[in-house]
């Protein structure tokens, strides 16, 4: 399929095939792919670019699974660097933000698969956070964790989700999807649930009315076909439920893990993946450039390659930083607004469910350079 034929399909709103996706990955000029993705992005969102104010809590890094790409997990309690927060510690993080009058709207909670904690640990964690800040949105536990709880505590996935929701769960993050292809999963994350199990957790959540995100880990040993296949499986579930809000491609970071020999994906591969995702996943509304992982410069550039979301202010991210990420661990809302404006886009602060929190003059303000340009043009002419 030629690039021009793919462009025609995109413009006609036809879903792209596996072969189309592979052709987009292999097209020699990634700017052309980006331009087409940008067309779709602007059709869906114009210049609007979303971010939120959030914080991360990784309550424990003790994890039964030994995924080769992970620098975060420790196998056992007592291993060097292993930690498990008490409830008070976890709640204390939120109390500190509330005390600082920091208007966060979301807490993102992702943890290791800890073999020694009771299920109550998780429900009480959520309930306590809600007691401190009832309006806060709790986006917590990947499908992998939920599936693990179901098996470990002898419940169905639906039962786990129901009990977590009762305790305060509002939506599910997209992590743990990695790559769906069994060949890759077996090699890099054999201890995790299968693709079908991962998808089934999200299906169940969607059917219960919970929204969720979805991800793809790229840059380990997967092929281009396996990446596109991964996107197509997400697209199929989305056709069924419509419950995904955002797709987040996650680049593999090679420091301090069992795949250290592999080079990290380069910037062009990152941007191309964003663009291909935007083109393949026509039914998922948002594509997020997770700046913690990409670096601020590439994340900003991705706003022209299909992405319309920069994630949030984030605080205390640990998973990517233990894998060598050199990005800061927090950005202020004013910084995010400035980066978006400097990219020639329009910043919109959202909540987790993409309701608008603030836009226009209500946002933390900074001058974009393009406005300066016009002023100086007046001086010249």
């Amino acid at each position, binding site marked *: 399929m030629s690039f021009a034929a793919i462009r025609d399909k995109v413009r006609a709103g036809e879903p792209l095939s596996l072969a189309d996706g592979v052709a987009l990955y292999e097209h*020699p*000029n*990634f*700017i*052309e792919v*980006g*331009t087409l993705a*940008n067309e779709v992005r602007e059709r869906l969102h114009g210049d609007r670019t979303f971010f939120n104010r959030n914080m991360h809590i990784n309550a424990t890094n003790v994890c039964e699974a030994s995924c080769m790409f992970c620098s975060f997990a420790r196998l056992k309690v007592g291993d060097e660097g292993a930690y498990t927060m008490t409830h008070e510690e976890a709640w204390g993080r939120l109390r500190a933000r509330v005390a600082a009058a920091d208007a966060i709207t979301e807490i993102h909670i992702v943890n290791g698969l800890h073999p020694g904690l009771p299920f109550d640990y998780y429900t009480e964690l959520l309930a306590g956070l809600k007691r401190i800040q009832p309006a806060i949105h709790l986006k917590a536990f990947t499908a992998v964790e939920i599936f693990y709880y179901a098996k470990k505590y002898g419940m169905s996935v639906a039962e786990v989700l129901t009990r977590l929701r009762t305790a305060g769960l509002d939506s599910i993050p997209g992590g743990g999807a990695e790559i769906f292809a069994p060949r890759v999963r077996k090699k890099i994350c054999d201890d995790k649930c299968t693709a079908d199990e991962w998808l089934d957790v999200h299906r169940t959540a969607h059917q219960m009315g919970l929204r969720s995100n979805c991800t793809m880990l790229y840059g380990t040993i997967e092929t281009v076909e396996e990446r596109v296949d991964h996107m197509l499986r997400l697209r199929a579930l989305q056709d069924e439920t419509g419950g995904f809000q955002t797709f987040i491609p996650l680049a593999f970071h090679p420091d301090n893990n069992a795949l250290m020999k592999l*080079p990290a994906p*380069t*910037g*062009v*591969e*990152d*941007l191309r993946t964003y663009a291909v995702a935007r083109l393949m996943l026509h039914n998922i509304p948002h594509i997020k450039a997770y700046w913690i992982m*990409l*670096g*601020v*410069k*590439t994340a*900003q*550039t991705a*706003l*022209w390659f299909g992405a319309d979301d920069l994630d949030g202010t984030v605080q205390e991210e640990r998973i990517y930083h233990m894998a060598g990420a*050199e990005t800061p661990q927090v950005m202020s809302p004013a910084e995010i607004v*400035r*980066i978006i404006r*400097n*990219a*020639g886009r329009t910043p919109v602060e959202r909540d987790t469910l993409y309701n608008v929190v603030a836009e226009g003059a209500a946002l933390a303000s*900074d001058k*974009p*350079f*393009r406005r*300066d*340009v*016009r002023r*100086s*043009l007046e*001086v*010249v*002419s």
Partner: protein
Amino acid sequence: MTKKKIAAVSFLNARPITYGLEHGLGDDRFDLSFELPSRCAELLERGEVDLGLVPSASYAAASGELRIVPGIAIAGFGPVRTVLLVGEVPWSEMKAIALDGASRSSAMLLRLLCKERGLTPRFREVPHDEVLDAVAETTGALVIGDAGFAAATRFPHTVDLGAAWRELTGLPFVYAVWAGRPGAVGPEDVAILQESLAQGLAARATIARAWSEAHGGDPADYERYLQRDIRYQLGAEELSGLSAFFDRARGAGLLPRAVRPRLFEARPRIAPVAPGAASRSIDSLLADAASGKRLTPDDALRLYADAPTLELGAAADARRQALHPDGEVTYIIDRNVNYTNVCVTRCKFCNFYRPPTNKTDGYVLSREQLAQKFQETVDLGGVQILLQGGLNPKLPIGWYEDLFRWMKANFPLAIHGLSPEEIRYIAEIENMSIRQVIERLIAAGLDSIPGGGAEILDDEIRYQISPLKCSTDTWLDVMREGHGLGLRTTATMVFGFGEQPRHVVSHFERLRALQDETSGFTAFICWPFQAEGTRLKLRDDTTAMRYLRVFALARLYLDNFPSLQVSWPTMGPEVGQVALRFGGNDFGSAMIEENVVSQAGAIFKLGADDIERYIRAAGFVPRRRNMRYERLAVA
């Protein structure tokens, strides 16, 4: 006024150069005659003509110092069809080669290429008309000029020397230039000679037809030759080719001394301003820019303000593709050595310098420290030292001369050293002219000048951020002198000092105008100001998107700069990769150390393997180069 005597060549490939002169241009100034190339050189050598269209080898071998008319050459990039080695046996089996007595450059090129291949045939000079008759058994012949058209099909073995040179260096070859004694022609004369060529280039079809009528042969074939095989610009890449030829010939013992292409003074060509430009749409501006039409300052300001980012990038990418159609992206292995941090300038944006009054942290690197850095560079495959430092009042010119001579005697490294500001400062403390300083540094071993310290070439901004640094005019003067003395230099720009777009465009305009005069710049490099830790508290946009827009605009505006280098050390390799699709064709240096930027917060480090991986992942073929942009073979 006495007319100046000028001697040109009667071959077809020289016709466009003299076309205007033959049609009345400069009648009152020049007395034009036609000779064989070697004869032109003889007349010039004997002082019987003021200016000759001479083989580049004759320029190099002349007993007295010569100057070259800027902007004009007979050159080629790859096969040229009229400089052929022919024979009954392959090149490697030739025991003797007859050289065309009319040729100088081609003969030296052939000798050089034989040496580079380890071949040692005997060479014998024969008259121009008899050269083909000399071919027999293991005796080949070097055929030049129009005889080459016929010879190409007569012999079983032919080698196009233009193609062989390109294969060796990746550069164009310059066969002939206008040359004369210093002062033989002035800027007015140069302008007329350039105009003569411009008229000739426009009349190539007519020239081909007339040639066919007079000498037989297919006029379409002649026109193809004039349009495609011969390049008439003495542009930056041709100057790189010329420098490479002289250096290699010197290395092979074919030239008795080091020679550089030194230029007559020219005046800037005035950019034509399209009437009614202000009313044009952004789309048509972008299309024009993408097709290589020269931008006016107003065009550039409009594109910068209103062109969508990816479209600006695509236009710059189209220019990159037109200028570098081979899809190669070059890089160099060198080391940035900051020989001293003592500096009197006190620029607000610099956190590297120590004033001379600081007795604890100021340093001048010792020979031992330098030797270690240089040896490490050699061991890592480095070919060059980027040598820059502060303006240290304790270092006289003799210190630099000794250093350069010692470096050249002990390390196989090119010296890309001393930015214009440093050169100006040496001139100041030594009470010498800038030209004298550069001449002495060249004699001591200086190979090229880095384009640092340009910041924004607009005095309004310079005065605000570095009031003690040289003015825009001085910076450009140092570069002009350097180019005139045969040095190649780069040019830089640092933005994000709160300047307006008109300052950025004015920077581009000044560089483009000087490049029109000299063609001495090899590459342009820009990056956003790295503010961390400096005294300059600024809140300007230094994000990736602004970098990419400025960079793309530079590619479109600087139409006479062959290379645009991406700045991965400041922007990160990811954005560096993206910039390769926003007009970049060079990935800069696999850097071993860089004190100035790294102290201000940039932390990226890449080795040659990483650089090659990034280049490949962006869809290009990596090629290692030196400062002349010669492609280097990598073991």
